[in-house]
């Protein structure tokens, strides 16, 4: 999820979510960056209203499944 956090960090700071920006943030954290994952993330976020995607509850299955284990 580091890649997502990097994207949210940029979004929150009002910066554009580009491959370069994500790579820079991850590298600053000492993370070895996988280019394909960066590209995939930027592609997945293209045209997405991030505020809306953040607010919309994700499908709950794993959490529900985890519940009995809790």
């Amino acid at each position, binding site marked *: *999820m580091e890649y*997502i956090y990097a994207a949210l960090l940029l979004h929150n700071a009002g910066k554009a979510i580009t491959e370069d920006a994500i790579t820079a943030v991850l590298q600053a954290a000492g993370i070895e960056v996988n280019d394909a994952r960066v590209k995939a993330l930027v592609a*997945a976020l293209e045209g997405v209203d991030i505020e809306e995607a953040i607010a919309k509850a994700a499908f709950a*299955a794993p959490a529900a499944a985890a519940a009995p284990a809790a």
Partner: protein
Amino acid sequence: MAEEKHHTEHVPEWKKNEIENIMELIQSHKVFGMVGIEGILATKIQKIRRDLKDVAVLKVSRNTLTERALNQLGESIPEMNKYLDKQTALVFTNESPFKLYKVLEQTKTPSPIKGGAIAPEDIIVQKGPTSFPPGPILGELQSAGIPASIDAGKVAVKETKVVCKAGEAVPQKLATMLAKLEIYPLIVGLDLRAAYDNGTIYEPELLAIDESQYFSDITRAAQNAFNLAVNTAYPTSATIGTLLAKAFAESKNLGVNAVVFDSGVMDTLLAKAHVQMTSVASKAADKDANAVDDQL
């Protein structure tokens, strides 16, 4: 003060050493703070000093010497002098001022109040039994202004009462009785008045951290990240399970709701039809038992 400065060259050796020592402690630590130690017993200070030893160094010195030491240092360090007050100690650490504040807050414990001391807030005695058997203590409580009586063979406080208002001095008699009742109105410990960190002076209002706020912020941040990843179908080890489950559930919903004849949803369709039939059958049976067969 001018007079003191005038006598600077006559400062005795031990005072010079003390000033040097303070200056050196400030320079060898990232952060130093001024703490109030009013009302703390020397034995308690010793204990706190031991408890802090891995995090901070505590130094009790004369204010005049502290002031001279600070004045000889650069930057905005002399500004810290305004936090000097009676009963001040210095504390030195390599942790952040926030950590220092947190650690010092943990040194605070409830303590008995002395006669003549000012109540920091309303002192309240709660209604209820005490551990004392009947005896002279009953009269002592009453004369201290605490409504006491005998109940079930024990001394008891008859009603909840404010026995001393905030800002008022606590009478000696009351102080003695409060201590006997184990009511500790004071929170005593090292009281950080200010911390100096690399040119910035931090006051306590800024240093008090609400950890629960950070906890909920993290929860929210994690939720945001999870939502974003799932809603944009970004596969990670944390979201792939959810994405698969979501796709499966959506497919199953579509299969059942659109009545697609697929082996993956046949069980559900059959069960659904059966339950619908049962529901309609029970409505019909309510009107006429002969309308349905005995199997139902």
